[in-house]
């Protein structure tokens, strides 16, 4: 049964699900949820490459996402950049920042690395909240529509097609990376840094690359979110969003690309499903997370995969 989740099969299931959603519903509410899930899933996959595979934690990824989002908002609104250029400028800024901080930060391990990335994320969100002249401060700011080659991307169906396609590409690329020497190198760094070095792996360089890559993915998705929602608040770059993103990775399953997608779907859907609990959503939400961690510490998808594998024997 292990093959059920193997490379090609997993992608086929993902493509089938992504195709089925618009066929089953044209309800704007559900399509909107699906778009948010896909965007979150892409960020979670990038984060999982860093946390689950390379074993380097980041509690500041919403900061990178925020830089991307606010670059798109501010550069288009105040400086007349075309949206795509603003998006790329944001990604380039995030790449440069991530590259600069990666070497000193990624020398740290465990709690120290968590604290350092947490600090970085908080600094970014404070800067965004304080630069009210450009960002609107805590009140947020409107974001113009995304235009690609002079044509505006509007309507849930178009947005859905765009992000679904991106999700398939990112899941495919991430799975390819993991199955290749460069991806095995990341996992070896997680398993034993000294063994990785002895095998000739450039540990520091690999950590920097995967950190930059996952930060840039977050930045690009931040830009898309800003354009899609059309309004941006500093919460996008905040600490709680970072925790939310990490929870997607952990609940879905560390070191599992498809786990990240499941985690993103759950964490995006749960608040909706729990709205019946009026005011107690957060408590129920927390309880679900705790129960998942106690009974499925490896995360949902790896635990299910193991169960299937055992049942298949």
């Amino acid at each position, binding site marked *: 049964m292990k093959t059920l989740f193997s490379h090609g099969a997993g992608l086929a299931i993902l493509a089938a699900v992504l195709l089925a959603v618009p066929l089953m519903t044209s309800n704007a509410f559900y399509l909107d949820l699906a778009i948010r899930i896909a965007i979150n899933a892409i960020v979670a996959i990038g984060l999982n490459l860093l946390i689950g595979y390379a*074993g380097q934690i980041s509690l500041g990824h919403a900061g990178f996402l925020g830089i991307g989002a606010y670059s798109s908002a501010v550069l288009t609104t105040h400086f007349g950049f075309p949206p795509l250029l603003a998006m790329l400028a944001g990604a380039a800024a995030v790449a440069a920042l991530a590259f600069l901080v990666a070497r000193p930060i990624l020398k740290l391990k465990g709690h120290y690395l968590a604290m350092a990335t947490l600090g970085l994320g908080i600094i970014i969100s404070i800067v965004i909240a304080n630069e009210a002249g450009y960002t609107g401060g805590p009140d947020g700011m409107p974001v113009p529509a995304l235009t690609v080659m002079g044509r505006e991307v509007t309507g849930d169906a178009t947005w859905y097609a765009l992000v679904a396609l991106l999700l398939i590409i990112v899941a*495919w*690329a*991430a799975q*390819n*990376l993991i*199955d*290749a*020497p*460069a*991806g*095995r*190198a990341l*996992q*070896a760094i*997680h*398993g*034993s840094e*000294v*063994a*990785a*070095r*002895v*095998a*000739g*792996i*450039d*540990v520091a360089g690999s950590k920097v*690359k*995967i950190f930059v*890559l996952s930060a840039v993915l977050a930045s690009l998705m931040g830009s898309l979110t800003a354009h899609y929602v059309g309004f941006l608040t500093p919460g996008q770059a905040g600490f709680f969003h970072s925790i939310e993103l990490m929870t997607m990775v952990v609940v879905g399953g560390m*070191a599992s690309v498809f786990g990240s997608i499941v985690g993103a779907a759950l964490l995006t859907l749960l608040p909706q499903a729990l709205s019946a609990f009026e005011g107690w959503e957060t408590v129920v939400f927390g309880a679900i997370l705790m129960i998942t961690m106690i009974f499925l510490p490896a995360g949902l998808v790896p635990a299910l995969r193991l169960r299937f594998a055992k049942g298949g024997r």
Partner: protein
Amino acid sequence: MLAVNHLSISFGGVKAVRDVSFSVAEGQVHAVIGPNGAGKTTMFNLLSGVYKPSSGEILFRGENVASMPPEQLARRGMSRTFQNLQVCMNMSAIENVMVGAHLKLNQGMFQAMCRLPGLRRRDAACREEAARLMDFVGAGAYVGAHASQMPYGALKRLEIARALAASPAMLLLDEPAAGLNNTETGEIEKLIRKIADSGVTVLLVEHDMKLVTSISDRILVMDHGSRLADGTPLEVCANPEVIAAYLGASVTAGVMQ
């Protein structure tokens, strides 16, 4: 192959290795022995680049590699195993071995993400080679296993397979027989001989004297960080200082610890 000249390292005030010189000829099996705390593993960490020496030089195939980091030493053909296992428990057994071949396959992350066909083919060849190596070290039964499912003895073999996957010129084995029973030790002895016969120079740290004397061309004896003796097994076993270190001085040293 390897020449160590006046190598020293100190941690704070402790001189863990002091002024040690010896050389290893190509194709030989050279053992490092000594009581606990003699500096054997520290010596290994110096030779494999994990530690930087305070002074002295390490000539590996004619080049001074002292202070060179492990990843650069790996490029020059040095590989090793670890006394306390360093198997990646988050990976499958065969992937652990494939990590050893990293330098042969390495390409950038972006090429990897695009799944280029040439890369796939080389990767498949690497997987076959890794399976062959697992067979060679006697861990063939675990080709489909996850590292976390393997018993201790098999993990030790897996580490050797990973080190061999780099096709090293020189292999450092840090206590390959530690924790193994007599039968397993006998198998490891045969394995080390096979490795040496395939043209790989072997340097090993080991406590099992029977294994060491039967397998080694030369033995370096260390005590308190210094070189006590270096010679053939017969020479070393007849050396009065070595006998004193093992039967007399080591007892008092043990009590002092």
